């Protein structure tokens, strides 16, 4: 999938983008990106067997669908690119250029833009999808990681792992408008469905910092400590919230557990043992199944949400990063 001449890439991407988007098919297929085996594995939603092994650019990490789920975008850190996968064909059909070492990103489908955190250059690159071009670089604190775009597309939130900051960015003006200091090494976001709060995992602080979005100030925090663990073992990274906004799941990294949190009460309800160094976490659309990528176990733990039990673990590629589901 390496194409030498830029003109060819442009023609290719343009051709791909010109196709009239088909409607989402709700195949239920599960996509797992694997950092070290440079592939996205596609799993059957019932048997969890691999139905397709899609080779991508090097070090695939964050993945997002476009609005109608005909395209899957995959940020590939070592090749400074976002690969575009055709969800119907299950193959890479294009490649967008990013800045150095893209990790997580957000898509604004209406504006045909991608916001991607480039951890090496400490910027958020704004990519014009049609033109396959970086139209702006917004300077952030060092090691930007988590990216969250407001529903109206006007505000972007970005964590700086080194700065211990969350930046609020005005996407029209293309600049940071406010910073808020959060727990040590902030990683990723989840937004409450009512739009009031932003939850940020703070890996080294072992907590989730809660940000009041209207005031853009810290409104609280949740600390984690699975039984028998030490505080220093608890390194939260991934966070997912149910669609009703009642329950959140936080992956605890070194502590090898997922915390179940009552969102309104801001209270931990329990812990579920998973594999080694869980980071990526995704809920199925019906909120009944939770998928956890165990980065140092090369597997994915499947959790039944109602009984809060891990039911199965399935081997995937090397260093699984994230999971998305076409449902």
């Amino acid at each position: 999938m390496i194409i030498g001449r830029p003109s060819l890439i442009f023609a290719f991407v343009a051709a791909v983008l010109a196709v009239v988007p088909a409607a989402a098919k709700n195949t239920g297929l599960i996509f797992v990106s694997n950092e070290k085996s440079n592939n996205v594995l596609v799993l059957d939603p019932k048997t969890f067997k691999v139905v397709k092994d899609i080779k991508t650019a090097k070090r695939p990490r964050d993945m997002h669908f476009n609005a109608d789920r005909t395209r899957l975008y995959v940020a590939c850190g070592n090749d400074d690119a976002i690969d575009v996968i055709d969800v119907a064909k299950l193959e890479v059909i294009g490649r967008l250029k990013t800045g150095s070492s893209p990790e997580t990103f957000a898509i604004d489908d209406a504006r045909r833009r991608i916001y991607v955190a480039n951890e090496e250059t400490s910027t958020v690159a704004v990519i014009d999808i049609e033109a396959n071009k970086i139209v702006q670089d917004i300077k952030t604190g060092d090691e930007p990681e988590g990216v969250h775009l407001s529903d109206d597309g006007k505000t972007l939130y970005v964590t700086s792992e080194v700065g211990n900051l969350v930046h609020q960015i005005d996407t029209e003006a293309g600049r940071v408008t406010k910073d808020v200091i959060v727990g040590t090494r902030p990683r990723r976001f989840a937004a409450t469905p009512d739009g009031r709060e932003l939850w940020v995992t703070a890996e080294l602080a072992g907590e989730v910092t809660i940000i009041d979005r209207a005031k853009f100030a810290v409104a609280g925090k949740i600390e984690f400590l699975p039984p028998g663990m030490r505080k220093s073992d608890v390194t939260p990274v991934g966070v997912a919230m149910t669609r009703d906004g009642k329950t959140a799941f936080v992956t605890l990294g070194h502590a090898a557990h997922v915390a179940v949190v009552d969102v309104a009460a801001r209270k931990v309800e329990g812990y579920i043992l998973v594999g080694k160094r869980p980071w990526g976490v995704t809920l199925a659309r019906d909120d009944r199944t939770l998928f956890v990528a165990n980065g140092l176990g090369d597997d994915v733990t499947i959790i039944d949400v109602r009984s809060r039990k891990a039911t199965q673990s399935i081997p995937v590629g090397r260093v699984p990063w994230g999971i998305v589901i076409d449902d």
Partner: protein
Amino acid sequence: MISRRRVLGRYWLAIILVASCAHALRAQEPPQPRVTIGFIDIEDDPRHEPIRAYERMILKTREHPFVGAKVAIDEAQALSRALKIDFALERLTVKSEAALVPAVTQARESRGIQFFVVDASAEAFRPLVEAVREHDVLLFNATAPDDWLRRELCSREIVHTLPSLAMTMDGLVQHLVSRKWRDILVLQGPAAADAAMTKAFDASVKKFGARIVAKRDFKPGTDPREREKNNPLLLTALNRDYDVIFIADDAFDFARQLPYQTQRARPVVGAIDLEPVAWHWTWERHGAPQLNSRFQRASNGRRMDSQDWASWIAVKMVVQAALRTGSADFAKQREFILGGNGFDGYKGLAVSVRPWDQQLRQAVFLATPNAVIASAPIDGFLHRTNTLDTLGDDEQETPCKLKR
């Protein structure tokens, strides 16, 4: 000549005017408080001379670790906007060890610098500590691993960010024991540093239940009369079997020629092949690749090493103290740094200062030239409060009792 002087006079007046205008403009916005960290090192410090095989064949460059501190201060810039505190780094390079004290005193008195990252030998700390006592100064030892500096000098004015010899040797022996490579042949070089390293290794061996089957002194050279001391085959020939060879060789020239020259097919550890270090350029977890690449960019491609890391974390600790106390006040920052708080050292478990000897507790990497083989504390070595305290002097193991 007169006219020229007059022109110059006007020129100076203009500068003063411009400066005062700028000052008036800035006066509307109160200036941010500033925290300046001094980085002090010595020109032609023999500890930083490259180790050479021949004139142009450099085996180890041994650079000053200033870039480590520089990277950390650059990282603080994004924060200074949110925190409304400026951070600055000032490098003070002096001509000799004797000039350290006057330079520190002058920086403190004239420019209000209270935090210093010190790149000097353990001996240099004796007069420094005397000079700064009672003066609200905190020194970070980023380059001296000597155990005596922590145990005997035992000073409240120093935070040791570089791991002690005891810590690195404990990490190494933990790994050997976890492999069940318990029987060890020790080869010691002629330098004082080799004796100190062997002493620390010996203590670690006792602590974790390994065995030294023989200890031999080597003497680099080719004199046939001293072949028992300079021939690798003879040095490693032993009736008793052993699992691994430990070599202490600060000069490095003998150690580099030992692997694959031994009597038995046994791995070599210590000064070569498997070395215990505070940092390694290949560490790929906990955000390390990003730090390593920031460092490489800032240093024209150099690979970050242990002393660079120790300088980097020292500056990070000061910045973090300002962040978490929301203050540029020295006393509050020192309290935070010494108060057992955790810092993000990019090597897993949070690093923090031990209250009894002010050594930074931290993981130790066991590294070959191209990979980190293990990170100590090794799984299974337990401690009642913090597994990092299985490395180096625990509270009851040291004569140093700084705990307040």
